[in-house]
């Protein structure tokens, strides 16, 4: 790791102010992505501004049909939260299979989506549930937020403060873990909104990051059952391929994980 200056911000405003004063600052949430990259000397921020202790970025709120998870809430706190389990149990499940216990105690929802790793779990949930990303400046729909591999709509110095999820009628998440890294080799989040709309999002699969799977959405809209996906054909074109999963295999996983997610959603 190169030399850096660490700051612990006590408020979002202070974090923004510190960012403005630094030459090449990075925000630090749970550190599950930034710190390993810094240790490998692949990132050399002049300043690291820790958002993890900012009180206004902590916690979960359930208000009517909206579940709001503040950005610096850890995966562990999300998966054990009673409101999450009650309103969107699929999110509790997703966080319970995200990484390992050490990751879940440190990693945060804001950190996960801000990095937009193509194999991260949370982007699939946001996209499938039609969530809204709240920042210190604005609200951004999940659709607009994720803009491709490691790319988001966030502007320089903009801080995610929360994610709001409309509570769905049904939702489920299933994934195949990468044998080495344990990230999602492919994960699929399925959701049926209270108005009957169906949204399906896959992570780990596409070269462009998290993606909607419209063919499966159409099949499930007609018939919400695993069997409805049997006839769907997923193209391997544009999908990721590496030593642990060919594009064809990932195409298969999109289908199989979608079926299992529907079964889990009930």
């Amino acid at each position: 790791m190169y030399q850096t200056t660490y700051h612990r911000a006590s408020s979002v405003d202070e974090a923004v102010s510190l960012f403005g004063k630094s030459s090449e600052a990075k925000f630090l949430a749970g550190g599950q992505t930034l710190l390993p990259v810094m240790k490998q000397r692949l990132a050399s921020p002049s300043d690291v501004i820790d958002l993890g202790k900012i009180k206004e970025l902590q916690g979960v709120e359930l208000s009517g049909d909206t579940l709001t998870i503040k950005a610096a809430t850890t995966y562990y706190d999300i998966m054990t939260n009673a409101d999450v389990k009650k309103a969107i149990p699929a999110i509790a499940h997703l966080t319970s299979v995200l990484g390992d216990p050490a990751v879940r105690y440190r990693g945060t929802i804001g950190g996960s989506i801000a990095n937009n790793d193509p194999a991260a779990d949370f982007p699939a949930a946001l996209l499938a549930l039609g969530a809204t990303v709240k920042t210190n400046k604005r609200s951004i729909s999940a659709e607009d937020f994720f803009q491709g591999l490691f790319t988001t709509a966030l502007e320089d110095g903009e801080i995610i403060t929360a994610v709001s999820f409309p509570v769905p009628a049904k939702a489920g998440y299933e994934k195949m873990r990468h044998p080495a890294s344990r990230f999602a080799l492919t994960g699929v989040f399925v959701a049926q909104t209270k108005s009957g709309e169906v949204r399906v999002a896959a992570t780990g699969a596409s070269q462009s990051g998290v993606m909607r799977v419209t063919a499966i959405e159409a099949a499930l809209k007609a018939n919400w059952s695993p069997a409805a996906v049997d006839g769907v054909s997923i193209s391997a074109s544009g999908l990721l391929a590496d030593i642990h999963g060919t594009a064809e295999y990932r195409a298969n996983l999109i289908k199989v994980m979608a079926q299992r997610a529907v079964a889990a959603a009930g």
Partner: protein
Amino acid sequence: MGVEGIGARVVRKEDKRFITGKGRYVDDIKLTGMTHAHFIRSPHAHAKVKGIDSSAALKMPGVVAVLTGQQIVDDKVGNLICGWAITSKDGSPMKMGAWPAMAPETVRFVGQAVAVVIAESKNLARDAAEAVVVNYEELPAVADVHAAIKPGAPQLHPEAPGNQVYDWVIGDEGATDAAFAKAANVVKLDVTNNRLAPNAMEPRAAIADYDAAEEHFTLYTTSQNPHVARLVLSAFYNIAPEHKLRVIAPDVGGGFGSKIFIYPEEMVALWASKKVGRPVKWTGDRTEAFLTDAHGRDHVTHAEMAFDANNKITGLKVKTYANFGAYMSLFSSSVPTYLYATLLSGQYNIPAIHAEVVGVYTNTTPVDAYRGAGRPEASYLIERLMETAARQLKVDPAQLRRTNFITTFPHQTPVIMAYDTGDFNASLDAAMKAIDYAGFPARKAKAKADGKLRGIGVSCYIEACGIAPSKAVGSLGAGVGLWESAEVRVNPVGTIEILTGSHSHGQGHETTFCQLVAERLGVPISQVSIVHGDTDKVQFGMGTYGSRSAAVGLTAILKAMEKMEAKAKKIAAHALEASEADIVIENGEFKVTGTDKAIALPMVALAAYTAHNLPDGMEPGLKESAFYDPTNFTFPAGTYICELEVDPGTGKTSFVNFVAADDFGRLINPMIVEGQVHGGLVQGIGQALLEHAIYDANGQPVTASFMDYAMPRADDVPSFNLSHTTTLCPGNPLGIKGCGEAGAIGASAAVINAITDAIGKNNLEMPATPDRVWRTIHAG
């Protein structure tokens, strides 16, 4: 058996310090004035080093020196050696290119060091290394063994035309051809034994400390065999004569073979310490471990097995290409020859065997012994062949094995090895019973109804341990003898120190070796300590590998104990005014048998050291040593059976049951044996399902971190069902065979046999990743 004697499940003495963080590893050692080394390594698989500009780095804070490959050559430090000479079938010696500790002219694999920065701290050394400019001229590279032997392939070493190190044969080709000519059935199989990265938990490390006044070096290093390291560093690398070089291998966090070898980093640290006049420390990081620790396996093999009409094996033909990487590591040449092809008879009567092994250079990390070293490759091949044969001949795989088992001993195989004893039916029976083999078809049918593909796979392995009779290995080309030495020191107050040339790096020697003393003297193991891993303390030793420490190292201790006991009995008999023949040792006392006359061990020891009243002519003291050279290899054997399910949607494998019935001869500490088997099985399963060190066509490593290289985790493996069937090894007085590698040798075939049974397709390479299994299920 006493409560702490042979056969007792004694809790490991060493674990108190390990689990409380008090282990003392090389990286824990800090010497006054110590500097830190950071190596500059080639990013290219094959390149000329055109120039190294260290002028900017030398101006950076804390930099002591930047040393290059040319300087180490100029200082006449020797090239790395390969310690086992192999002769090709045409009678020519193996062909090797030079391996300097740092490359002066040509780099041949990614990660090969070209220079080293010595600085006041690790970070300063790393910072400065980024400022060293190395000018490379890239050369074409080759990583695949078949590509490397093609005409026109990039050539690594002028000494080895066609990238061929040797073309070696064993067995009777004429007899084997005759057997195939008469065969009723022939079974053919192509298999790849995937390349593995060893990944000991502790990375390699070294601290070199040169004392200019004494012209003496001390090297602290992560070694499985510090005496061998000293021997090689002295005799071949011109570092220092043996009496001017002390090698200390303190606590070592796992080796699996990878810490047998003497690596460039230790040599450079020693040389640099003298050059800069200060201690030099190097601790590798995980990336360096992936790039530079000797890899394991990497064979490509075609094999054919001939059967008569009664399903008896009549012949075996094997041709193997072994990928050695870019240089010949210390024992690499012996692994695919004498440690592999000599085990190709498996547990079976095979009248004729012929095997040919072609050793090949490629632009990859050097390959050498890794847990099992040749025997996993042999066992995997034979057990995949047996399963393939059972399918082709439409007979039960267990029955086919039984039909061909060797049942009388000793048994001379056609490939050198003479098996001393064993009972292969007993271990097969035990494993089949443990897994309820007869009930499998019903379980398979039930799994099918649940949408799962269930399979069962058998693996009957045999291996050779306790290496080895020195005369025998010498005649086969080994550069060293493979005996072991020990010394027993009874202190004046009766406590005991055992000095051993074996080296524990996780095996629990500090407990098991004490158990032999407890067994023989009836003293608690708390009165005994084990001294190892220091060339200044222990007279000599050949180290720990090849599951040899109990069969060879402990036997050496036994021999020294017998000498010590004989002297102690003389002292006791003198003190008790009894006949030496009437003295027995019980519960820490020397007793006159049939009487209540006794003298405690501390009193005997004290008498030996005060020397006030010893038998006439007896030397004072109570300390004896022994060298023990085994008379034969030992032959651990057993049966592993794996039952698993494959998810047809994802190709993912889930274990249902895994049973192991091993014959290790006598067990000293069954708990430690079980731990060894667990670890070995996990490594075997890791090879079968997860692990693969991969290079792209240009020799760039694709799996140089745990993000890409899949190590087995606890939830990847089942809870194992272990048992033992025992035939005592006749070759050593304790009847020990060895248990350190069996799991890694036998497990992978059981897993692949089970998966191929589940999916109904025979051809499946390791690692059987979900992707690969899914594609195999859905292929053609």
